[in-house]
Structure formats: structure tokens, C-alpha cells
């Protein structure tokens, strides 16, 4: 308990000026899309309040709320369970699971949901298979159930990665003692582990929450009429309503962020983690169940859509061999977008890690309204539809002739737009990690007279790194699949895998789309392994 008091004491210290200024600038830059949105509401005579209380808004809003709650809950449970199994137990094949479990995040939902439908829905590939053994399956994925299933399977990595990172950093000594004292596994989990991972779990769940309210691809294909779909269908023919609905969405997101901040404050308990040896818990008789459960998730979230993608791609390749219509893409058409996708997403993830650190420190270490504001702005922007972020980039760069000439259509503005959209994913896990730096360590090193910089590298970085790495991993995967911003903001002739996939599906070139989507999944697996998982293993 003395850690707690020590932490609270730190919390009353005043934050360094440099940190505050950096956070202020970041907050201001990240507010660009929101300011644009408010401005457009004013200039187009939108009336968000009137729109809010119309039938046209209320029922999609209720559907958004329903969907968001169920997806967040199930993704939180799934992500945490899988993280615990792969990090803290002797689950066989946990090494490979660690690499592939985050990957479902890379499916752009418009492809992922289409692939799901192709595999599972009536007349689909799975259906054909079970029909042969005499089962007449009638399951049809659509509506709330379909959207829930697809979104849960595509978003649990938001919880899995940060919680796994946190668990890795957690000393197992307390857990061991609890077990030795005769506590059951569940009560050990609840009393010892849960409080320690709570801030990472909350940060991850918030990302799921925000992702779900902003998702368009899955709800559209699952025919579930949510707020984002209302924003989308009115964007051309009724812009005042579209802008007003977006304000409502953003307000809803900001509320969620504030609530999360308030809750997570109660969990800011440091632990005794250092690089202590983790003792793996033996699953014993639960092993078969645990293996089945985790591979079932892999099967549903990764293999199910991949089967459809593979089927599409194989049809196309076979067709080419049989002398049918050749594929519309050749090797060169694949190489360029693959390279573009790889470097732009790595660069974005790297910069995201750098810019979220100051804000994370400010929020986790000090009582700072600047920090909290910056955190709220950066996090809630994640829920903003990509189209609006893209439009805001044009709005701001065109305000100034220098910017219009030198920034519009450049890589810089593209990366900036990605950062605005996705930094929240690095911020949450980073904040949780900074909060977990044991003050005892800080105090000890202070007494020993270590310089600030030295302290940062010797004490903070090792504790923060896994969480930060996990967060950057999320940014990496999200950037790889980003569509609306890439289409509108990228330089001319800057194809990425996702824009190519979009082009393929737009005109029903499913073979080409399937092939490119498989490459996207493969690339994400390689990058996740090389840049995130292997690193994290080095750190442990």
C-alpha cells in the first residue's frame, strides 16, 4: 500500500513546462477535424439538437449503442482471456498464437465482412461443405447478430495486445502466493490480476468501443442501420444532417472517453513488476478446452474470412491457367502497393509512439487539465469517420496558399491524417504503461542520484516499452487497412493494398481483391511478428 501513497504524492507535483507545451500543441493539431466539423455545422445551418431528437436519428443511435455495448463486452472478455492464456499459462502453441491472434485487426471490415458472408451464409463455402454430410444449415449472418460477431472477431486484438503486454510485465509472485494460500484460479484472477491489468483492459475496451461506433464497412454489409450509415447515406444529398449526425457521434465518443478516464483513475495502482521471472500456470485438465477455445477464435476470426479470400483468389488463378480471362493485375501491380503499405504504416506507427509519450506522461503522472484535454481530444477523434478527417485536411490546408501548395496531396499530410485518426490506439496502452511505472523504482533511483534522462532510459523505457510497442502495433495494423483517408488524402499515384482491394471489389473483380487481401494479411503477419511480437519477447 505504500506504493499507492507514494504515487498520489507524485500526482500532486507540477508538470514540467516542456511536457505541457508539447501536449498543448499536440492537442491543438489533433483538434483540427473536430473544429472543422463544428465549423461545417455552423456554415451549413445544421441543427444537431433538432436532428438528435428526430426519429431518423434516434433509432440508428439506439442501434449504435446496442451494438457498441455488446461488441465491447465480448471483445473485452475474449481479448483478456486470450491474453491470459497465451502469456500466463502453459498453453501449447502459445508462441504461434501470440503472432496470429492480433492479425484479424488487419481486415478492412468491408472485405472481412464480405468474406465472412461468402464463407458462412446460405449457399456459402461452409454451407456447401456441411451439406455434403447432410446438414441443412440456415444460419444467415445479418443485422445485430452478424455485426456483433464480425466486429467482435475483428476488434478483440485492441484488448488482446495491450493486456498481453501488461501481463508480460506483471510479476507472478503475488499470484503465486495467493495460489499457495489456497485461492482458486478465478479468485486469484479477480483479486490479483484484474486490478493490475484493469487500466490496459479499459484502454483497450475503449478502443473497441470507439472503433465500433465509427465502423461503417461491417454494419453496411450486415445490413444493420446505425448512426455511421446514416452519416454515410446523407453525405451527398443532405449534408447539414450528415454533419449534425457526425457531431452527435463525436459527442458520444467524447463522453465515453471521459467516463473511461474517470474509471481508470481508480485503478492507477502500480505493481511490483520489473523483469521478474514469470511462472507459467499449468492448465492441467483444462488444457484441451483452452486449446479448442483459442483455436476456435483463430478459426473464426482469421481462417473463415481467409477461406473466402483464398477461394476468390484461387478461382482467378485457376482461370488464368485454364486460359480463361486473365487476372487484371500482374506482379508489378502487387509490388508497388505492398511496399507503399509497408513503409507508410511502419513510419506512422513509429511517429505515433513518439507523439503519444508526452501526453501519456502528463496524464498518468500529473494532475493536469492540459493532459486530460489532450487525451480526450486525441482519443475521441478515433471515432470520427475517416471521410470527415480527410475533408478536414483539405479544409485546413486550403486556408493558406503555402499549405495548399506544399502540403496538399503529400506524404506528410497523409501521415498526419493517419496519426490524427489512429494515435488513440497507441495512447491508451502507453498511458496505462506509464501509470504502471513503480514509483518505488523512481524514488530509489532519485536517491541514488541518477539524471532525469538516465532515469527515463533505465527505469521508464523498460516498463513502458511493451505497452508502447503493443499500441504502435495497433496503429501499424490499422494504418495498413485504412481506406477513406488514403483514397482522398494520399499523393496522386500512391496505391496501397487497401485502395487496390477497394478498387477490385468496387467492380466485382473478386479474384484480384481476394489475392490482394491475402497479401495484406500475410504482410501484416510478417510485420507484426518482426516488429511487435519478437521485440516484445526480447523485452520480457
Amino acid at each position: 500500500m505504500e506504493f499507492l501513497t507514494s504515487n498520489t504524492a507524485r500526482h500532486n507535483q507540477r508538470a514540467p513546462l516542456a511536457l505541457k507545451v508539447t501536449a498543448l500543441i499536440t492537442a491543438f493539431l489533433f483538434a483540427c477535424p473536430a473544429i472543422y466539423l463544428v465549423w461545417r455545422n455552423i456554415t451549413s445551418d445544421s441543427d444537431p439538437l433538432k436532428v438528435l431528437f428526430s426519429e431518423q436519428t434516434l433509432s440508428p443511435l439506439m442501434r449504435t449503442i446496442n451494438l457498441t455495448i455488446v461488441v465491447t463486452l465480448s471483445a473485452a472478455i475474449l481479448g483478456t482471456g486470450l491474453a491470459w492464456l497465451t502469456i500466463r499459462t502453459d498453453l501449447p502453441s502459445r508462441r504461434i498464437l501470440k503472432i496470429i491472434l492480433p492479425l484479424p485487426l488487419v481486415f478492412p471490415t468491408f472485405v472481412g465482412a464480405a468474406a465472412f458472408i461468402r464463407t458462412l451464409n446460405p449457399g456459402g463455402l461452409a454451407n456447401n461443405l456441411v451439406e455434403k454430410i447432410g446438414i441443412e444449415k440456415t444460419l444467415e449472418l445479418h443485422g445485430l447478430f452478424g455485426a456483433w460477431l464480425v466486429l467482435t472477431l475483428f476488434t478483440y486484438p485492441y484488448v488482446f495486445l495491450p493486456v498481453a503486454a501488461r501481463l508480460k510485465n506483471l510479476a507472478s509472485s503475488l499470484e503465486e502466493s495467493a495460489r499457495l494460500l489456497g485461492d482458486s484460479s478465478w479468485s486469484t484472477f479477480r483479486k490479483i490480476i484484474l486490478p493490475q491489468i484493469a487500466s490496459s483492459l479499459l484502454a483497450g475496451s475503449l478502443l473497441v468501443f470507439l472503433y465500433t461506433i465509427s465502423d461503417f464497412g461491417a454494419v453496411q454489409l450486415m445490413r444493420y442501420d446505425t448512426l455511421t450509415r446514416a452519416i454515410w447515406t446523407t453525405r451527398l444529398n443532405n449534408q447539414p444532417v450528415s454533419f449534425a449526425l457526425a457531431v452527435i457521434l463525436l459527442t458520444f465518443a467524447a463522453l465515453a472517453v471521459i467516463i473511461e478516464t474517470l474509471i481508470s483513475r481508480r485503478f492507477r495502482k502500480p505493481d511490483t513488476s520489473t523483469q521478474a521471472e514469470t511462472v507459467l500456470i499449468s492448465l492441467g485438465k483444462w488444457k484441451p478446452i483452452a486449446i479448442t477455445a483459442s483455436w476456435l477464435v483463430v478459426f473464426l476470426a482469421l481462417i473463415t474470412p481467409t477461406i473466402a479470400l483464398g477461394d476468390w483468389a484461387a478461382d482467378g488463378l485457376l482461370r488464368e491457367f485454364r486460359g480463361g480471362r486473365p487476372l487484371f493485375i500482374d506482379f508489378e501491380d502487387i509490388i508497388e502497393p505492398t511496399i507503399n503499405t509497408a513503409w507508410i504504416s511502419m513510419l506512422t506507427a513509429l511517429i505515433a509512439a513518439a507523439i503519444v509519450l508526452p501526453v501519456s506522461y502528463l496524464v498518468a503522472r500529473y494532475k493536469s487539465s492540459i493532459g486530460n484535454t489532450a487525451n480526450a481530444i486525441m482519443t475521441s477523434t478515433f471515432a470520427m469517420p475517416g471521410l470527415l478527417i480527410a475533408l478536414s485536411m483539405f479544409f485546413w490546408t486550403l486556408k493558406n496558399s503555402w499549405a495548399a501548395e506544399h502540403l496538399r496531396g503529400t506524404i506528410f499530410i497523409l501521415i498526419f491524417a493517419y496519426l490524427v485518426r489512429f494515435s488513440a490506439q497507441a495512447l491508451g496502452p502507453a498511458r496505462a504503461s506509464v501509470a504502471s511505472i513503480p514509483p518505488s523504482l523512481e524514488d530509489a533511483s532519485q536517491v541514488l542520484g541518477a539524471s532525469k534522462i538516465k532515469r527515463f532510459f533505465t527505469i521508464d523505457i523498460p516498463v513502458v516499452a511493451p505497452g508502447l510497442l503493443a499500441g504502435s502495433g495497433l496503429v501499424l495494423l490499422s494504418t495498413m487497412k485504412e481506406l477513406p483517408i488514403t483514397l482522398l488524402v494520399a499523393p496522386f499515384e500512391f496505391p496501397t493494398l487497401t485502395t487496390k482491394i477497394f478498387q477490385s471489389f468496387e467492380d466485382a473483380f473478386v479474384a484480384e481483391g481476394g489475392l490482394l487481401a491475402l497479401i495484406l494479411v500475410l504482410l501484416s503477419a510478417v510485420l507484426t511478428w518482426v516488429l511487435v511480437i519478437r521485440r516484445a519477447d526480447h523485452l520480457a
Partner: protein
Amino acid sequence: MLGIPYEFWKPIDTLSLMKTNHKIILSSFICLAIISASCSSSSNKRAELSDRAAEIVQGDCAKDAGKEVTIYSGRSEYLISPILEAFACESGIDVRVRWGNSTDLAVLINEEGKSTEADVFLSRSPGPVGFLEGNDLLGSVSENVLSLVEEQNHAASGSWIGFSGRKRVLVHNVDQVSPDELPKSVFELTDPKYKNRVAIPGTNGSFEDWFTVFRDQHGNETATKWLNDMVENGAKYYPNNRSIVEATGRGEIDMGLVNHYYNYQEAAALGSEHRAENYDFPSDDIGSLLIITAATVLATAKDKEASNELIAYLLTPQAQAYFSNKTFEYPLAKGTKPNPVLPVLEALEIGSVDFDSLGGGFEETERIVRESGILN
């Protein structure tokens, strides 16, 4: 806690290792990117054309004219880029393209306003073009280009011109729908025998265009009643043409109202596994409307002459033959014949409808579709 100094050399070491590792990967990708970018820079030599573009080009490439046209294209890259490449070769004019969804691009042009980079906008359907015209962002296509198509295939104001067409059809699963069940008119689809069997792409651009014309031709009341009756009859909403054609091919739904184009693609991609076929309503039925894809010159186009030259190229015999033979679309230039595999075109054509007179037509369509409850 006592082991701090001893413990900490190790993580630092691995961290610095990681960084070098990261740099190597990153810089190698950037190098590759630079190499590939320099490879793909366009050139006006016939030998460097892609196979598809080479098939279109007649003769040799022209010398670099020192001009450039920027296109925002809602038509997808696979179908249009060979033609644009061929144009660049034959005219010597450089072409830059921003690809995207027609509606998003129209919204973007509206946001950019006078400072838009777009000279030409290619839209998959007339709706987004009508939106830009309403906001005074369109210039006019020159007279001699307009004269390349029949009068009903360009705007009366001359602000846009059609260059290919996609026909509305009823796609249906051949195992679940027998030929004698097929309706003579879209109006028959409200009959109980089609209960829960029809898919409608309610929020799709070309459906909205179609429904707007439907309202214009048959009156608001009839059109609204038809849609409400369809919903009553269990019509199901799907987000777009492609998803309907795909679902019909699997047998998830029996039939759907779509553009003719997608079934050709799905059949070409999946072969006999795909169990759906197009059915054409009789030519006097609103159900067989032709939706045309439109080209426009922006009011702020930097080089109007080059922009018109590009649009004219879309209507040359070689480009029109490409649309007809490679993308299974209806050519619109006077005197060109559609691909013989396509049903003969006698349909109502969307260009014959005066969009300007519809006044808020699309907004109203959006409202009627939403209030019908089809989206729920």
C-alpha cells in the same frame, strides 16, 4: 527491488539493438519505394504501355504536349486506366488520377471548391454530378464533344456527358426461380408470390438514380407506394449491386434489382459455381432503365481544351469498343454497337430525364427510401 542497477543493462541493450533493426527495415522499404516510383513514372512510348492499353492505342504515341489533366475518377481503376493510358499515349497529354467512390469524390470537390485540383470528374452515376452542378462547380463540355452522343445522353445544359451505360435488370438464381416466374414489370414484384424473395440496394447510388427517375416518370405517389409495397412484401435491403449479385449466385436470396454489369463479372470470376443470371424487363418498363456513367469538366479546370480532349477520347470508337467488349457496358457514342452478348438496348435512358427539373430530387429520394423502412 535491490537489484535495480544489476538488472537494467539488459533491456537497454536489446532496445538499442531493436532500433538499428527497425531502421534497416524502414530504410530498405523506403529505398524500394523510391525505386518502384521511378519505374512507374509515365512515359509516352508505345513499348511501355500495358497490354490492355496497347490494344486500344491506334498507331504510335504522340510527342509530349507539355500539358496535364487531373482526373477525379469514381469509375474504378481496372476498367478505366487502360483507356487513360492510351489517351496519354495518343495525345501526349499527361494524366493524373485520384481514384475513389464517386460520391466521396464529389463531396471532396465541393469541399475544395474553387481550389480543387480536379479538371475532369468521372462519375459512376449522374447523382454526384447533379450535386456538383447544383453547387455551381461544373463548367461545360464543348459543343463538338456533346455532339458525339445522342441528345438524351448528355445534360441539356451541356454540363455533363454520358460515355457508357449500365442497364437495370433483375438478377435471379436459376435454381430457385423458374423462367415462367419472372415478372413482366417491376410493378409485379409487389405480388405475394415474390414475398421475401427480392433484394433492393436501397442506399446505392445507381439505385437512387433509378428511383429518382422512377418518381419523375410515374409520379411521386406511385413510386413511393411501390417501394412501400415492396417493403411490405418482405423485400430485403443489401448495400450494393455486387453484394446482391453475389448473394443471388449463392442462393441466399432469389432475385434482386441491380445493374446488368456485375453478373458478367461474377460469372467471369466464378464460372459455373455462380448460379445467377440477368433478366431484362420489357423495354418500356421502368425496370430496364439505362444508367449512364458521366464525365464532366470542372468550372475551374486549368486546361479546358485538354480536358475536353480527354472526354472526347472516351467516346472514340476504340475506347467505346473497349467498354463494350472488355467491361460489358453499353457504348454511348453515336454509331457504335453494343457487344452482341448484351441484350438489345431499347430501354428508357436516364439522360432523357432532365435532372435540373427534379429539384432536390436526390434528397427527396433519400428521404423516401429511409422512410420506407427498407433499411431496417
